[in-house]
């Protein structure tokens, strides 16, 4: 699903290939207990200046996908098939040295837990300056100036002084800002943000997301925003990809997906989160059961063990036949569009009798 | 967990080897009966032709023969195999007893300090600091004679049991601190966990909390630590005997065989070979076992 960029970014790629294109990506880990299919046939595209949200529970393959894009997955025992092209360049087969030149430069990543993701042993300034020096060949002084500039840009007060602080001397929000500064120091064209706000207070979350948006507006980079929080997604991304058990189960423009979700799992996700718009008394509905083991994924639709609608589909279809995700907007589910509408409507109706706990 | 362990082949093999050593130690008298020799008889002195005029075995390779499988001891002419078997018995007895005491003390002090906290924790912590500041090897050597002298009554033979007791005591007093430190840390972190909090709220007695809530969670570190501690105690005990403050003749002792071997090596290198090999196998097996136990209990560390 290609989204047309509404802003000033010139359309790239004379060819039809989008800026970032992931095709039929499979990531498998060999472990003691067997082969884990962490990502199983994932495809998506992303253009410059656009933001793609990826949501899903932990272990759904979101992070693995992003690590695979950057080539940061553990090499040993990991098998990757499919293609990842960035600006026309194939990444899965690229040599490590080529990837090193891209990382932090053309593509950068913001990690979830800034406390562990920043090295405790070096100053914030040094960690920000490091990729800058490496990729631009700047002098130590220039790099430092750049680090101060970046810290300033991400809203660290008194940046010139704080540049010499260590990460543990920063608050959580400031650390996350510093991490963003680090990711953006070389003006990357692709920014992958892996749950950048999960560990933060709600107010800080909003600030960080605003910051990301602002920066995107300035640089026109493409952003992949990984989260399990649909609330974050709603206001930030252009398109949304819902992942379950290593597969994309639904995708489409964010309004459409959130407004008219087509997959029971997406329904579950929406039901398990509080909404600002809804009544405080409205109970939250958790998805029953636990994510499936990726060692032995359920046959057919991987969601069927937790799905309340297996019966509606009828027969063994959910258990035996894997539903395809249609190109563009759509969901990988055997339910017919009509069944989906009915079921969704039923879900959205209040259920006073049940109290859910979180 | 057990299943995990069983799948770890090197762990299982090591367990068998370790068990074999303990079996040897326990059944030493039986073995020596079957083999037809005992560790105290001076075959080389009693029978001409076994030792030469310098007191070394006449036969090559330390006198290894169909009769003396591991050869005979220079100058005293005793059978090396039975000496070794009984030596292992002595050493393992001391090491096991010392380890058990260390573990018990470590658990007691560690859990007490961690659970009660506050002033008790502080005092126990300083006490541990103090003991840790003792140069351990030096202290073993310095204090063993002191403890001996506390037991010895002049004019009577010091029974071997008292010597054994002394060694156990000395190894114990300066050996439990590591375990205590470790457990204290564990308990400190467990103490804040929900289930302990919950148990406290329901009014469970501290003893009950320790027994029912804490100890089950401490088994892993205790077991792993003990498995690592025992071989090191064995080697320390052997080191003491090597230096000459351990078990005396004629009680066979593993460590003293090294001391003797160090004397004899110029003319009879074979003598030190078997005790040395046995010790390497024993410690390797125990270390592997320790690794396996840890892996089995704590799969995260599997790498």
């Amino acid at each position: 699903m290609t989204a047309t960029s509404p802003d000033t970014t010139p359309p790239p790629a004379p060819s039809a290939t989008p800026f970032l294109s992931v095709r039929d990506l499979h990531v498998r880990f060999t472990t003691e207990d067997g082969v884990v299919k962490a990502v199983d046939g994932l495809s998506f595209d992303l253009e410059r200046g656009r933001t793609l949200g990826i949501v899903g529970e932990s272990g759904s393959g979101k992070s693995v996908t992003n690590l695979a894009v950057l080539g940061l997955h553990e090499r040993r025992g990991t098998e990757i098939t499919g293609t990842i092209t960035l600006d026309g360049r194939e990444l899965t087969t690229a040599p490590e040295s080529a990837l090193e030149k891209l990382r932090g430069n053309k593509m950068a990543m913001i990690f979830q837990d800034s406390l562990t993701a920043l090295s405790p042993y070096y100053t914030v300034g040094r960690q920000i300056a490091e990729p800058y020096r490496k990729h631009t060949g700047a002098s130590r002084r220039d790099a430092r100036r750049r680090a101060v500039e970046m810290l300033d840009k991400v809203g660290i007060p008194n940046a010139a002084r704080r540049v010499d602080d260590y990460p543990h001397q920063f608050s959580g929000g400031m650390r996350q800002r510093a991490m963003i500064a680090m990711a953006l120091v070389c003006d990357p064209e692709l920014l992958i943000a892996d749950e950048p706000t999960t560990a933060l207070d709600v107010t800080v979350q909003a600030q960080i997301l605003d910051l990301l948006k602002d920066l995107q507006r300035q640089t026109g980079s493409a952003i992949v925003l990984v989260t399990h929080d649909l609330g974050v997604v709603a206001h930030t991304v252009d398109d949304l990809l819902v992942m379950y058990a290593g597969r994309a189960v639904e995708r489409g423009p964010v309004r459409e997906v959130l407004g008219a979700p087509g997959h029971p799992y997406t329904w579950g996700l929406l039901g398990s989160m509080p909404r600002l718009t809804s009544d405080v008394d409205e109970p939250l509905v958790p998805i029953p059961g636990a994510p499936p083991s990726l060692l032995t994924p359920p046959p057919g639709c991987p969601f069927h063990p937790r799905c309340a609608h297996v019966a509606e589909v009828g027969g063994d279809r959910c258990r035996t036949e894997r539903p395809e995700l249609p190109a563009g907007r759509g969901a990988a589910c055997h339910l017919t569009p009509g069944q989906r509408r009915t079921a969704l409507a039923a879900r959205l109706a209040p259920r006073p009798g049940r109290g859910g706990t979180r | 967990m057990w299943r995990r362990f069983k799948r770890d082949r090197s762990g299982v093999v090591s367990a068998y080897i370790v068990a074999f050593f303990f079996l040897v130690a326990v059944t030493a008298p039986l073995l020596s009966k079957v083999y037809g020799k005992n560790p105290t008889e001076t075959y080389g002195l009693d029978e001409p032709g076994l030792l030469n005029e310098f007191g070394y075995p006449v036969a090559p390779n330390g006198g290894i023969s169909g009769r003396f499988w591991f050869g005979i001891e220079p100058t005293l002419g005793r059978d090396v195999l039975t000496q070794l078997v009984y030596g292992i018995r002595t050493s393992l007895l001391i090491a096991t007893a010392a380890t058990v005491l260390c573990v018990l003390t470590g658990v007691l002090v560690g859990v007490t300090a961690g659970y009660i906290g506050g002033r008790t924790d502080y005092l126990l912590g300083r006490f541990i600091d103090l003991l840790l500041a003792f140069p351990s090897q030096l202290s073993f050597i310095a204090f063993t004679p002191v403890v001996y002298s506390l037991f010895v009554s002049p004019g009577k033979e010091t029974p071997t049991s008292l010597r054994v007791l002394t060694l156990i005591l000395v190894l114990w007093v300066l050996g439990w601190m590591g375990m205590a430190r470790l457990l204290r840390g564990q308990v400190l972190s467990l103490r804040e966990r929900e289930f302990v909090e919950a148990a406290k709220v329901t009014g469970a007695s501290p003893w009950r909390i320790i027994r029912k809530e804490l100890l089950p969670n401490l088994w892993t570190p205790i077991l792993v630590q003990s498995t690592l501690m025992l071989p090191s105690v064995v080697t320390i005990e052997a080191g003491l005997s090597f230096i000459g403050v351990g078990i005396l003749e004629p009680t066979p002792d593993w460590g003293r065989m090294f001391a003797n071997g160090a004397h004899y090596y110029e003319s009879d290198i074979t003598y030190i070979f078997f005790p040395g090999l046995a010790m390497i196998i024993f410690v390797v097996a125990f270390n592997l076992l320790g690794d396996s136990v840890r892996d089995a209990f704590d799969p995260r560390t599997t790498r």
Partner: protein
Amino acid sequence: MTKALRHRHRRSAAVALACWGAAGALVLTACSGGGGGGGGGGKSEGPGEDKTKASNYSLGTKEDSAGPAPEVKGAKKGGTVNVLQRDAFNHLDPGQIYFADVLAAQMLYNRSLTSYKVDDQGRVKVVGDLATDTGTASDGGRTWKFTLKDGLKFEDGSPITARDVRWGIERLYAPFETDGPLYIPQWLSGEGSTFRKALPDGPYEGKHLPSSVLDTPDDKTIIFHFLQPHADTPFATAMPNVGAVKAEKDTKQKYDNAPFASGPYKVGEYKVGKSLKLVRNEHWDPKTDPIRHQYADGFEISFGHQYADSTRRFLADQGGDKNALSFSSAVAPEMTEKVLKQADTRSRRFVEVQPYVDYMSINVDRVKDVRVRKAIAHAMPNGQILQQNGGATAGLLATNYLSPAMDGYRPTDPLGKKAKPSGDPEKARALLKEAGKEGMEIVYAYANTDVQQKVSVVVTQALERAGFKVQKKEVDANIWRTAVAEVKNKFDVYRNSWGADWPVSSTVIPLLFDSRQIADGSQNYSHLNNRAVDAEVDRINKIPDVKQAGPEWQKLADRILTEDVPAVPVFYNRQFSLWGSNIGGVRYQPVYGTVDPTGVFVK
């Protein structure tokens, strides 16, 4: 009172089988020391044959006492001798010296009134050293007169006079002089430590012994007036502390680190506990000295070389070790075989009998029945004990109380130990049965050292085979001496070792077996209390000629061993020395039981 030389060899690892008659043929290679050192007794056949070396002890004449010493064949001047010693010297002050290693070393820088001259055949003569002869006795042996030679000088060139000798003797009365032999002061002024009352501060406060005790009528004459007659005075004056000390240079305790030399070498540099460098003393005149040479430029003595270390270095014979020897370190027993098998060591080693004897004392107070004592004696596995001590190169199986190094020694064997080196359990059992003491409990005490632990194994085993029950009692090595020297000790059998200060048995039998010696700390460890023995001791002591007394001592010793059995002789110690190939003139000093460094040169 007197104490014998106690050699410092901690016999921690020593030695192998004795050359007993039975095993003799086998062991001959081990026992033949090889004709190194030029000393006699290249072969030591063991107690089976009369070694007769002992009978070679004699008093030298005036001519024997005149310098210079006969040249050593092939000797050259120059070069430095490296000396590897195990233990650091505990004293350099001649007044404090008593241990074998320092006794050997002091020969290089210190001269005494008389000294021992060893000839090529290993014969020992007592000769005048500072004195012109071995002294003249009068008043029935109570008064001894010595005359100093001409041309004697200290290291600063000042002459040595009778006053210096007097000072040297008087300073032995000072309270800090505790470690050396005290024959002369005790003979002059009283037994035990009572002699110190005669001159409590030594000569330092300006007081001196009256001339009725010690007289120096002129610069050359010294006259001793003893309380009792002492026929062996020439031997007593050969102790290193009967020499000259220059009063101005006497720094009391500090003299221990910087003695003022009268011999051919003087202290160059001394790092206590580490090394000692001896350099030529230019003022020493060879014409005055019948014993010493000054071939090497100096001696560099270093301490801390374990026997295994020094042996390995002599064996390798590389670099500076070619010029190395040791005064008292023996070949490490575990390397004996290696040394004997390495052909090139043949000309640079010796195995010699020392004046030290290992005994097993039996506490007569506790083991009252002589038959039981006999049983113990017969059961004692001498050969096995010796083997634990290092075997043939560490000692010879002993058959009686006197060392072959003693004057008048005869190879008697009253207990038939030669035939039964591992003990005679049957005979012992029979004796025990006769005494009706089968299963009797014996407390065997031993010092807790490596070797003694092993010895305890064989002793216990032998006694148990003879029908005893044995309680083994280990005693801390550092209190061993005091523990067994306690009269009221609770032990029955315990090892001790005795070495004579000079090769006359008056320094052995009375000390070990005279009932009047029984006291805490004394050497009558067995507490033998037999009036007849005491009387015989007195009788022999009165014989004015030491040569005639010799055989009498042997007879008495054998009588005690046959009738009273207060101790079992176990083995005679031997010194097994090895040195570097570039060293010549090494010979054995039979009185000290060490290498004699006086004729050593670098090839």
